[in-house]
């Protein structure tokens, strides 16, 4: 398979890479760029654990070809923290509220939550549940996750 050159902008940094065209964004993030914060769950677009932001919108990185996102700005969980190294409000709230158990869904949850809150600064609990309905968590029962997101919304 002929490799293709690609310029990806991830967390504000530009990466020049040379990859076979059949690589998904998830594979490139984890294997080429060593940004292993983004997790692969089902690999079929169902669970949402591979969610990253593309120009601020959540996408499934396991179903997105890396070549398809050239020219956009990708944000992964590694890029959530502020410039001074402080955790993002959503991350801190997940910790404070105990919204993490095994942690595997957490990077995807954080990215979906971040994109959701950017568009819905004062949501109802129902809005949060609908907004995050594309992310599956098998541990928490979602209660703590919803609470954590509601807390961030109240602080803003």
């Amino acid at each position, binding site marked *: 398979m002929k490799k293709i050159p690609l310029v990806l902008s991830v967390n504000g940094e530009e990466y020049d890479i040379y990859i076979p065209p059949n690589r998904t964004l998830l594979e490139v993030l984890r294997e080429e760029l060593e940004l292993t914060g983004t997790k692969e769950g089902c690999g079929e*677009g169902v669970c949402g654990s591979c969610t990253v932001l593309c120009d601020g919108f959540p996408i499934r990185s396991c179903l997105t070809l890396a070549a398809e996102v050239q020219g956009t700005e990708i944000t992964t969980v590694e890029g959530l923290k502020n410039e001074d190294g402080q955790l993002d409000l959503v991350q801190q709230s997940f910790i404070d509220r105990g919204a993490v158990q095994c942690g595997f869904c957490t990077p995807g949850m954080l990215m979906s939550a971040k994109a959701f809150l950017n568009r819905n600064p004062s949501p109802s609990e129902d809005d949060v549940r609908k907004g995050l309905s594309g992310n599956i968590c098998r541990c928490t029962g979602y209660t703590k996750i919803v609470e954590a997101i509601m807390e961030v919304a109240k602080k803003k």
Partner: protein
Amino acid sequence: MRLPSFEYLEPRNVEEALEMLAGHAGRAAVVAGGTDLIVRMKQRLAQPAFLVSLKQLGGLNYIRRENSLIAIGATTPLVSLRDSDLIKTHFPSLAGAARLIGAPSIQHLRGTIGGNLCLQTRCLYYNQSPFWRSGRPPCHKDQGKICYAEENSDRCRSANQSDGACALMGLGAGIVLSSTRGTRSLPIEDFFTGKGESPFAAGPDELVTEIRIPVPGNSEGSSFQKLTYRSAVDFALVSATAWLAVEKGRISRARLVIGGAGASPLLLKETSDKLVGKDVHDKHAVEETARQARNHASAFMVDNLGSTLEYRKKMSAVMAKRAVQKALDRCLGNSSVKGRKSQEDQKS
């Protein structure tokens, strides 16, 4: 799982895309968002030699009014349909269907209406990993000669689970197909073949470029109802959409469609016609319609989705009833208080 090998093509405009499709006819697949195709490629259910990306074809992302039609570009993301005032006002069934496809995180960028319309038919015994399928001979859809869903079936019995296709068929949409040979427009009924092996009437060199829907009058209403186990990221076990027009307290035109039953959304012409002339408050007529819908849909259903066949058959009546009732409510709402929207319409 890694994707199979392919050559990636990125046309800069529609003309270039059509030339690529014509040049590699039968060996190329179109990728808009990829939420269906990439999964099928991972499962080795599709192994195109060329992948034609529509990424740079920004010209196909629009919703606009053209006289008595609303035209929707094929790569318009589902979220645009979900949130568009034009769609919410005129076609609440389509806005509702868009809201129920996947989840918000899929509707934003990757899920497109053209892609959803072209969602391949699905079956519990086909949409599986290569390992799962390797245990026995391939089925009709996998170029084999056997059907695991229906014993002794001589053809593929997979189901169309596209919510967009079901809603669009209810609205009597037209599908615009383009190729280097020219452009043609098909009524949505003719876009589907009804065959599980090859569900679409589009040629291998053709691209769905636009969806055109006639703008309804004031006393018309539509609704889409979907049955799933999960509230998000799930395909319809059975769905129904109804589009109705009301004149002088009676139903004057009707289109009832059942999704998730056959290889195409089922337009129930006979059942729809029987609704015409009925009083808008005739509950018995709605019940009777639901019963007929179940009878017709049951003839197409086989045990091939993640629920028992009997339950899906029963629920086809319930979905049909809810769709007709909701569409009627909207007809009456539209004619008495113009522009009034139900709570369901406004939620997103």
